[in-house]
């Protein structure tokens, strides 16, 4: 694997309270285009680790580099800039309830400053891709959980992010919706070479892409081949 590292952690310690580390002095590297799973028991710090990747939690010590940006002392403006290159998916979807499906998907494009025509075209293409054409003008609460997660997926893909970060993306979904979401994540990784980092309890058995697996236990991160 000669490709560039997009996430580098060195002796990374993460904590919400001083001297109560969730992740302790862990080092790892994620390369561009990799599909990565982070697993571990409940409360082991999987979501905490993901939060540090999108800048919601600063490292207490050690170094964390995301796309070449040092996260230890990152300023809000730089963080906003970095987030334009990330696509984030949550277990609870985090869709804006007052906005239509179309506007939710458009959000990253609007932030990136694309013209209205580009936003419209890209949104239509993505909604077709996630099999939600015809539901553009629905509001999130009018959709099922699986559909909402597909909207979130379309939003995460809208601006062709460098890294997709997914926190339990299928945690609340039925089998069919889960298969669709995994298919979309695999597609983004295979076709667009997007780096995908997924926090989950269990890795789907029938995944077709090669992946890297990190396991968190008692604050330490282990790479499992």
């Amino acid at each position, binding site marked *: 694997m000669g490709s560039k590292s997009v996430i580098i952690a060195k002796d990374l310690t993460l904590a919400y309270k001083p001297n109560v580390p969730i992740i302790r002095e862990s080092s790892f590297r994620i390369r561009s285009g990799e599909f990565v799973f982070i697993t571990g028991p409940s409360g082991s710090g999987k979501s905490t680790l993901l939060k540090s990747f*999108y*800048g*919601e939690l*600063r490292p207490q010590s050690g170094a964390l580099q995301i796309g070449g940006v040092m996260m230890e002392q*990152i300023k*809000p*403006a730089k*963080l*906003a*800039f*970095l*987030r*334009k290159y*990330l696509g*984030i998916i949550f277990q609870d979807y*985090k*869709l*804006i*309830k*007052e*906005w239509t499906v179309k506007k939710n998907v458009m*959000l*990253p494009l*609007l*932030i990136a400053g694309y013209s209205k025509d580009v936003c419209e075209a890209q949104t239509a293409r993505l909604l077709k891709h996630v099999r939600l054409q015809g539901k553009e003008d629905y509001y999130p609460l009018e959709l099922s959980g699986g559909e909402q997660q597909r909207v979130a997926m379309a*939003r995460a893909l809208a601006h062709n992010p460098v890294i997709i970060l997914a926190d339990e993306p299928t945690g609340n979904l039925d089998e069919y919706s889960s298969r669709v979401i995994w298919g979309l994540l695999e597609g983004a990784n295979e076709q667009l070479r997007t780096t995908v980092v997924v926090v989950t309890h269990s890795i789907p058995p029938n995944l077709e892409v090669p992946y890297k697996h990190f396991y968190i236990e008692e604050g330490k991160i282990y790479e499992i081949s």
Partner: protein
Amino acid sequence: MKSLKNHISLIIPLFAILFAVEFYLIIDRLIADYEVRLSSDYSIVVVSKKPLTLEELKVVDPGIQSMKEIDSTLIINRLKENSISVNYEELKEYLPHFYRVYLETLPSSQQLEELREKLSKVDGIERVETFRKTHRKIYHFLLFVKNISKLFLFIIFVTSVMLVFKQIEVWNLEHQERMYIMALFGAPLWMRNAILVKLSIIDTTVSTILVYITYSYLISSGSIVKLLGIEDLSIDPAQIAGDMLWLFGIGLFISMVNIIIVSSRQYRIATV
């Protein structure tokens, strides 16, 4: 319904602020008009051994607007009325010159005292009568009214700004999730707060229009001048219309400052 309640919660304090500001502006203008009237009615009397010219007095104080000599016959007539037995023709020859001196503006008590001292030093002037007691009463009353309106403005302003702040904080909490999600995708602060700015612009516009309607009614019905007991003074409705732009600016400025303060405290987690 909830949305309407939210709008009203901001419109009421904004209306109070703008109403108080406009009230202050009206009072300030009325006082200025009143001062002009008072200064045209008010004069000081100067007694001089030799004739004086306006130019001479203007050198002493440029605030002197005009002067008028008091006819000595008037003084003699007054003596006659009191049946004082003197040779009035002879007396006329010896009487000094009396002048009524008018000022451009109504001076403060201190300015008046300074003017009196300066005039007393002018060659020939024997006496300067400023009617200090009457002046002081009028001047202090004006000062009192001015300060009361300032105090009124200050109290309403502080209370209302606090209410505006609270309402914007409520909006902020209501839209917190949306702003958080936007922050997660890298939206800049202005974009995240666009909804608050939009709501503030709407409510400031509504408040300004309401203030305009209220004052237009109060002025056309003559309620303000009646209330203040100054029926001989008038308020120009065109000036009220002109003030609305200022009021809109003030309302918007207060809202924006509050949005900046509220948003600077928000999403520390989302933005580290």
